[in-house]
């Protein structure tokens, strides 16, 4: 279990010297506990304390990086079972398969298709970030040829799926510089695969049925000198897969059990159903998969999957912010009211909901207050006349409100005089609570 701030404090010199740039030793200890500071920043901590802390602060799940240069992803190093406890840190890799049984033209076309699986959502690009080349042919030369095509065409991290060490070796000849994930090592081939992985400094998948067998296998692979491992439990059925994913995560986090302290890979093939693999993959992304491999390749299949990953890996600790600017509710005409609020999403959506409820088409000017609510922003000078007037200029509110009247939250009524002076607009003090908006709008702006 992780050490608390007080636990760490007890190991510190308690002199409050401030040399670590924290005002007190306890403040420093709390930052260390939250992984915002490293114990090394304390110049006076004893070697003994350092050792105690070092053991407790090693990541329970190994960080594994796959790929090189710009085509690199990192997975693992997760710290919690539920995202609300902290956040999920490293988004799962999403891999699309390419079989080496296809013709070269088909392989090239599929690689091209993978490259185009990129979408823009809420100002962020989401994309398939891995390709998994399958050695379905069993032939090392064919495999290497397929890998070569995909590697050339697709700027993504690669998974080499073959349990034949010769195939892996042949493929590595053409793509070792890409640091692919070798998939993988099992009880019978692990010596050869681990040796390859070690030689080429590649991460490797350990594949065994059940967690006990996996425990055994990862210990052997680490003994062979490979550190970056990905687990595949080879479970049959969704329920068993979910169980293995859950148990492995719990062993790593709750029991600090090293042999299972690695990210996990799951594989979903369509078998004629184009929806089901996506649904399964969605469930596994929510519950602990580090990589999902699928043969789905249509944009309507990958878009929801990539969105699930984006949602699940959003940091819940960051206050969600709304885009600053003028937001239109309904179809506001030139006589529609202009309300002002902050860009803290909870604040904004509360206001938006009430405005919507009022059925009075309106404009809402969202001021960038760094995700703080009305009073907090006001008290910290992020939502005072200066900022509001600047936002009114920046977002050219006159274009939507030629009447030159603006409604400010009742909680910042004190700003009304100054804002009126500064902006030259008529400043109307609105209700203190969002719940008062509908009756206010209906009575005064209802047309």
């Amino acid at each position, binding site marked *: 279990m992780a050490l*608390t*701030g*007080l636990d760490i*404090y007890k190991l510190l010199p*308690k002199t*409050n010297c401030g040399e670590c740039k924290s*005002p*007190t030793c*306890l*403040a420093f200890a*709390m930052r260390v506990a939250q992984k915002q500071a490293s114990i090394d920043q304390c110049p006076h901590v004893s070697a003994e304390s350092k050792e105690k802390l070092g053991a407790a602060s090693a990541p329970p799940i190994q960080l594994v990086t796959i790929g090189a240069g710009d085509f690199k992803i990192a997975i693992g190093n997760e710290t919690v079972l539920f995202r609300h406890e902290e956040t999920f840190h490293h988004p799962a890799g999403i891999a699309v398969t390419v079989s080496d049984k296809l013709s070269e033209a088909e392989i090239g076309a599929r690689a091209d298709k993978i490259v185009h699986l990129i979408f823009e959502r809420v100002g962020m690009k989401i994309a398939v970030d891995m390709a998994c080349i399958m050695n379905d042919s069993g032939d090392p030369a064919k495999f290497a040829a397929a890998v070569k095509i995909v590697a050339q065409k697709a700027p993504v991290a690669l998974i080499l799926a073959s349990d034949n060490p010769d195939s892996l070796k042949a493929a590595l000849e053409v793509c070792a510089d890409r640091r692919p994930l070798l998939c993988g090592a099992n009880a019978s081939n692990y010596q050869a695969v681990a040796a390859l992985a070690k030689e080429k400094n590649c991460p490797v998948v350990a594949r065994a049925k059940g967690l006990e067998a996996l425990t055994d296998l990862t210990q052997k692979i680490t003994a062979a000198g490979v550190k970056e491992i990905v687990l595949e439990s080879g479970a049959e059925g969704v329920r068993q897969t979910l169980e293995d994913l859950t148990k492995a995560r719990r062993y790593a986090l709750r029991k600090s059990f090293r042999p299972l302290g690695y990210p996990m890979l799951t594989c979903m093939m369509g078998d004629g159903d184009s929806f089901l693999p996506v649904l399964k993959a969605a469930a596994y992304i929510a519950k602990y998969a580090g990589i999902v491999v699928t043969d789905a390749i249509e944009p309507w299949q990958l878009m929801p999957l990539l969105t699930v990953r984006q949602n699940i890996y959003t940091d819940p*600790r960051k*206050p969600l912010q709304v885009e600053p600017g003028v937001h239109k509710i309904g179809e506001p005409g030139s006589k529609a009211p202009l309300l002002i609020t902050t860009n803290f999403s*909870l604040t904004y959506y509360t206001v938006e909901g009430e405005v919507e409820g009022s059925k009075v088409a309106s404009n809402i000017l969202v001021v960038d207050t760094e995700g*703080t*609510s009305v*009073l*907090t922003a006001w*008290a*910290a*000078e*992020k939502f005072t006349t200066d900022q509001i007037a600047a936002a009114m200029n920046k977002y050219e509110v006159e274009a939507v409100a030629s009447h030159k009247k603006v409604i400010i939250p009742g909680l910042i*009524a*004190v700003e*009304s*005089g*100054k804002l009126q002076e500064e902006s030259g607009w008529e400043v109307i*003090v609105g209700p*203190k*609570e969002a719940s008062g908006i509908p009756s206010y709008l209906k009575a005064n702006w209802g047309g």
Partner: protein
Amino acid sequence: MAQYKVTFLPEGKAVIATSEDTLLDAARLAGVYVSSLCGGDMICGKCRVVVKEGQVFEEQHMLLSREEVRSGYALACASHPRSDVVVEIPIESRMEGKQIVVDEDAQRFSGLAKVDLAKYEFEHAPLIEKIYLEIPPPSLEDSLSDLSRLFRAIRTHVDVPIMQTGLKNIRRLPQILRRGDWNITCTLGQRGGTVEVIEIEEGDTSNRNYGVAIDVGTTTVVVHLIDLKASRILATDATYNSQITFGEDVITRLIYAKEEVGGRERLHEAIIGNINMMINNTTAAAGVNLQHVTCALCAGNTTMMHFLLDLDSSNIRREPYIPAATNVPPVRAVEVGIQINPRGLLYGVPGVSSYVGGDITSGVLASGIYRAPELSMLIDVGTNGEIVIGNNEWLVCCSASAGPAFEGGEVKFGMRATHGAIERVKVLEGGELVETVVIANEKPRGICGSGLIDIISELRHVGVIDRTAKFAEPGYCSRLRRTDDGIEFVLAYADDTAIGRDIVLTQPDIDNLIRSKAAVFAGASVLIKSVNLRFSDLERVYIAGGFGNYLDLHGAIAIGLLPDVPLEKVKFIGNSSLNGAKLAILSREASLELENIAQKMTYIDLSSNLKFMEEYSSAMFLPHTNLELFPSVT
């Protein structure tokens, strides 16, 4: 610009104002108090006055009812004179004398109390000491200079490595030594690691050594005159902080200091004026010569200390909230305008951060939580609710912005705990019967914090409000009625009040109170969770603040303001800020302890703490969303 005479009743004070001035400005000029929470922004509607004679122009607002306007009421902040006018300040807008129980010591000791240092195990060694010296006269063999001779003599009495004194003293020294026939009294003041010879007098005056301990509160200021030698309180005085006319809360005053030309100076002068007036009052009452008061020690929140010392306060409310100083070295009191001995020193109790100041450090000293092995919590409930949790190994603290509701602000008939305030309430018979206790047994003018806590817990008890603190439908009881502004509950009917109007509690009043209590409780929750502990781990809970004197614990727990801990673990400690200051002025050991405490306290900033909002929303319920946290009341 036209100028008019504005006369204020009942005082009869008159002042010349321009047509640009508001009546509130005029009242400030005249030194007449008119209640105002928003500082004149036409928001609070508290500065109600009655224009008896003459013409005023009143800006538009919606804070008075039609009926009130018809009977001559106007808002002072919205009204400008258009002729000579006579204005009456009605009873509800007046400041009625002093707060009755500003400070329990002021009552209990009534001027003749001894501060019990032994109880705190502090050695009696005041910050300013007077020692009587019989100095061997010089000779050809013993030919040290007068100053070195003085220092040598002092060192035979006290162990001080480094000494200093001002040029003025050195200039006077030869004369005083000889005129006193080498028998003199030295006043020694602590200045960090050194000792300053503040004053040299002929003969033995060591019995006349006085200091003042001052609690500089946002709302009230309290002065205790102390005989430093006898550890005795000689006289006490308390008054409202005159800065109130510039804004009720800290944030409004910070804005005033920054935005208004001359604002900072006015805030500074206001508090200095209050302090000097009270120093005069107390010294006069005790027959002490101001010359013999050589030491003033102030405990106040960080903003108040900035205004007192006239420091630049403009960064306090701006992220990352950096004050100019939290620990100011001793300065000459006259430098800031405090009128005691011209060479007397002014000490400030060190604070922790912008929002946890010396008043809290002082409270920690007085409560003793920093030296006890058991886990304790100190809650100082005011406009800001400051909370400290810890023991002899560590201390964490935070400040939750509670708003002025518990001090009567933001509540329609809210007022401070003065004459005519309803301070206790019992609601019976399903809301039909209300029993009240009014301060000084007068007819009520309004309701103060303790009464508000009672009323919330009582209304919940009889079902007039539900757990979300929303009123039932009118008709639930006859006192619950619907008006144009919504539903309200009648606490006292017009005939039974001193103001001739019904005293009511409105839904927004209740909402403000719930927000205040939620902020305090949420702050305490975040704080205790920051150290991975629970309220049930607390061995002691100390409640401080003027407010704490009346607090009904059952009610405070029933509404979820205080955590549900066994009552025997809870202790009121009154004005802990002042009590700590008194200990420190009498004991250097205690004053050093203040430094240690301030340095040791770890400040947890709530405004950047994401868990605070979560805790806050779970505390917006009666008593709390997690009912299991309040087993004794659910």
